[in-house]
């Protein structure tokens, strides 16, 4: 452990611990003081007062959600590379800096262009499909 | 929509077409149908642009009477069409012609037990599932009336020949034609 980070490391841990304690304490108090009554259906899954059909874990969701998440994943990581670059941006020459960033961002935006063109962002009505 | 044209077609399908005064009863025509003509009649009405106001059953003695009520979006023309169910309390469905009839038929099946042949999903709609045989709107024996008892008595000085309503669906009553219309 490098000296300079030692103290800040302690701070981070301390606050994390406080977070855990502050989260756990009310939960424990609640467990101690709360009444515990069970009826026949108290622990059943809520679905507007009806018995649910099947379990929610069997649901497979739409591809659209995954597509958004997939695009995000790559995009997010891409953007994060820009963070260290941004801190060092004053250390490079103008032409080099600008051109590198423009190329990088340009390549990045192709992803949106592609997804847009492919119609990832459109949610058509599915009336015909069924 | 030309009402006279339509009336002619009704007469082909029905046993009786009656003109009724709107101010008294709230509808214009009264059409008595044979059970198997109901679907043809509904098709005709849809083609003429009528919409289905209502569908209900009335429990009277020879058999349960199913009443269809139609009206038109453009002109005032309220039509009552009625038909009797058969011995097995069955009736052809019109829910594929008038989709709105779907629920009305299910409701009628709930309340009166009329089975609509060809209905896609004749499950209880309003009553709980376990009340398949409840049929709450069927009259008790004591209260049940004959179909004549609930028909409009013609006004006393009526010059027109008496419109005797069908005592039984099999017997065709004399059709009443009326020249003028309201």
């Amino acid at each position, binding site marked *: 452990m490098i000296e300079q980070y030692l103290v800040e490391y302690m701070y981070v841990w301390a606050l994390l611990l406080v977070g855990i304690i502050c*989260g756990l304490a009310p*939960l424990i108090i*609640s467990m101690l003081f709360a009444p515990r009554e069970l009826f026949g259906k108290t622990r059943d899954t*809520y679905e507007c007062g009806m018995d649910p059909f099947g379990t929610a*874990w069997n649901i497979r969701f739409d591809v659209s959600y995954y597509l958004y998440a997939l695009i995000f994943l790559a995009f997010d990581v891409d953007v994060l590379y820009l963070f260290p670059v941004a801190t060092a941006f004053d250390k490079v020459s103008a032409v080099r800096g600008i051109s590198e960033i423009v190329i990088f961002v340009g390549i990045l935006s192709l992803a*949106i262009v592609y997804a847009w063109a492919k119609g990832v962002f459109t949610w058509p009505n599915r009336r015909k499909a069924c | 929509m030309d009402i006279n044209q339509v009336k002619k077609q009704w007469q082909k399908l029905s046993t009786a077409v009656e003109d009724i005064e709107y101010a008294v009863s709230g509808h214009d025509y009264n059409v008595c149908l044979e059970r198997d003509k109901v679907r043809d009649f509904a098709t005709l009405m849809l083609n003429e642009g009528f919409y289905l106001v209502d569908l209900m059953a009335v429990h009277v003695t020879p058999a349960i009477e199913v009443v269809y009520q139609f009206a038109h979006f453009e002109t005032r023309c309220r039509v009552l069409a009625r038909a009797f169910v058969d011995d097995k309390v069955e009736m052809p469905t019109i829910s594929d012609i008038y989709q709105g009839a779907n629920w009305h038929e299910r409701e009628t099946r709930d309340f009166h037990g009329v089975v609509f042949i060809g209905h896609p999903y004749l499950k209880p709609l309003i009553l709980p599932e376990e009340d398949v045989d409840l049929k709450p709107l069927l009259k008790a024996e004591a209260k049940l009336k004959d179909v004549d008892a609930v028909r409009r008595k013609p006004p006393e000085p009526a010059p027109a020949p008496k419109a005797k309503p069908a005592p039984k669906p099999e017997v065709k009553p004399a059709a009443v034609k009326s020249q003028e219309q309201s």
Partner: protein
Amino acid sequence: METFYSILPELIRIVICAVCGAVIVFGNALVMGYAERKLAGHIMLRPGPMEVGPHGIYQLVIDGLKLMGKQLVVPAKADPLLFRFAPLLAFAPVFVPLLVLPFSEKIQGFDLDIGLLVILALASINLLAILIGGWASNNKYSLFGVFRAVSQNVAYEIPMLLSLLAVVFMTNSFSLKAVVAAQSPVWFIVIQPLAFLIYLVSIVAETNRAPFDLPEAESELTAGFHTEYSGMSFSLFVLAEYANMFIVSSVATVFFLGGSSGIPLPYFEYSGIIWFMLKVYSLMFFLVWIRWTYPRTRFDQLMNFCWKYLIPFALVNLLITVVMVKLL
């Protein structure tokens, strides 16, 4: 023992920090909860909480205590481990970001040089908690809420990052203190108005608040991802939401509104904190204000607004910033 005494001041400071953190998180939840209900009331021409304490100021304390005294129901079909763990996971990390916030020039937990990253990193854990909690409930509405939460939060994280990045390109530092210092003549809201707007829109979505509160859309998904949560575990989610609101508003204050800078008040050394809080709470007021004004958006429209408007604009804004920084 010698050494122990040498670090004692530091240790005390750590403890004070921790306590302050707790005070801020809980205090903010109380203040915001009360303010939200009161403001909502007055926007709707009614007084809001009135009877519990003068003008109902104890209402939120009462609510909190009541939730503590409620039964914790764990549905039989849920995954008990994850179901109990998720609220904790949502709540525990909200304290660390408070460490790096510069409440004034002198009041700051610790000025990490990666301050912004700490905030972003720990804020992203919240999403995982929602995900786990919603899934563990084994409820279809929860699962719905989870899917919406995931898609929406991840999507809006990008414009948020991009708009902050535009500022970082100008300050070349993640340290929040340095960012505040960099806007001594003029706040970045003047230089980067577009980035500020984009950030503002994104934080509404990031904190799952109306009109972007799709993960807990009442009229569609009953209560969204915390449908099955009762009592204290539910309130931990709510506390985390309010804490996150505070944090994102603080980041907006630091990055765009000049942090704690403002006219120094006489006889008060720490006047910065007043300005800081003022700015943070006016931003939060704005969040409350729009919450009670607009209808909810539809999910696809929300997503497409992000991908079709916010991200392109943010990218363009970033490029312009990059060019301008080098040319000017």
